[in-house]
């Protein structure tokens, strides 16, 4: 648990949970690191074998526990190591976002991006974009909810 104190909107440092696929996005993040590309340290990366393996339960868990954004990174369409996992990931996240919209639960905190192993810069840019947008959105209200 980091001890960073969170102040009001814009002024806070968002916590982002990132699910990155082993074959593309995780390697992209690796490349960003080895290339010494600077990006905000707000993301906590969880490596998964395929973006298609990211069940809604993981995303929900992160959001309900107070993560300010969840990022799912997969291979570009057509490039999935398992042929079609990213298409299935997309459908899963479309469904989750749809349900969260009906419930009024901030679907915009969920980000899906396709990042290949050679796109270190895109990974860094994406993290920066998510941090910026999440700062505009403010902290996740679930942080305060103990009765979930």
């Amino acid at each position, binding site marked *: 648990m980091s001890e960073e104190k969170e102040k009001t909107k814009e002024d806070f440092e968002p916590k982002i949970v990132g699910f990155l696929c082993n074959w593309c996005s995780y390697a992209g993040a690796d490349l960003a690191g080895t290339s010494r590309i600077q990006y905000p340290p707000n993301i906590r990366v969880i490596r998964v074998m395929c973006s298609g393996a990211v069940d809604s339960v993981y995303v929900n868990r992160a959001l309900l526990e107070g993560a300010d954004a969840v990022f799912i990174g997969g291979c570009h*369409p057509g490039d999935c190591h398992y042929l079609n996992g990213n298409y299935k990931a997309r459908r899963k996240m479309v469904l989750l976002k*749809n349900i969260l919209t009906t419930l009024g639960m901030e679907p915009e905190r969920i980000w899906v991006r396709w990042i290949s192993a050679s796109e270190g810069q895109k990974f860094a840019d994406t993290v920066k974009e998510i941090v910026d947008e999440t700062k505009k959105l403010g902290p996740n209200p679930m942080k305060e909810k103990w009765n*979930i």
Partner: protein
Amino acid sequence: MIYGLKIENDVPKTVNNFLKQLLESGKVEAVLAMQETPSGRSAFPTMISDPDKLDTNVFAPLLPVSTGAMVSRLTKVKGSKKPLAVVLRACELRALTELLKLKQADLENIVLIGVDCLGTFPMKIYSNYPGDEDPTEVVLKGEGEEDMRTACLNCKDPVPETADLIIGIFGTDTGKSILLDTRTEKGQELINDMGLSEFGNEKDREKAVLDIRNKRDEARKAFMEEHSDIIGVEKLLEFFDTCVNCHNCMKACPICYCRECLFESDVFDVEASKYMAKAKSKGAYKTPTDSLLFHITRFNHMILSCVECGLCEQACPSDIPLMDIITAIAENAQAEFEYLPGRDPEEEMPMVVYREDEFQDVGEG
């Protein structure tokens, strides 16, 4: 083809005699249909092979379990070797269709007889039905709506369209005759030698079915509008405030077929220090944990196949009116994928197919 079925005594007895004929003719070895328990306080889908024990009431306005889930339970290890007739309502048939797509049932040697559904009462009301009236008679008269389950009042379609044979009530004069609508060869074979005459009032039937669909559709829209204020974290937490995490909604759901649900597994059993860390992160933590996680995740897993039978709501010990939110969630989610559960047995489920050029706004940008 639509045939008329003359009423002798009353409607349920006429249908019972029809099923008896099927049994006695040897066309089916057994019938699975709603039969009242000896006390009369309840009725269950019952497998009956002895014509003398056949005392069904397929119009009993009660949905204790989904017959669709029962067919899955009876056939998922191995399909039936002998011919079996299953009598079910529209929502039960829709559930069965979804379970078939999920490979959780086998229709080998099974003929599906659908019945028009007039709506059902909650178990608590049915088992202690007020006054001397028989609840079945009440719904056959077209009454009793004030006591009906919300799922029934908002039913998408009370006509079991994809059955082999439909026993129809809408658009008939229940004092004289009801109808038998054969939809498949299998259904036709059942009644070929019964010497039934044509129904003759197809127009009445069509109009009545259209009317009831429109009525339910309007009720559904009004219902969703009425409950559209359950939105946002605060309202949602308030809505689920009385949830005791018993998972009855999941167990009653015909679509929740997983042998071991993630939420019943030991995934959530962690050492005390983890719970302590949870408490520290928010200052406090309610136990049992993860009620909202359970519900939102369950919606994700079953909502595209949700047939809106309302069994989850009926199963809730805390009387949480689940259909107040599930109706809208199902409507929106199914619309997103242009999918209607149970509409067509050949239609593929949204989560097993994909198109390369869809939902471009998710993933790029």
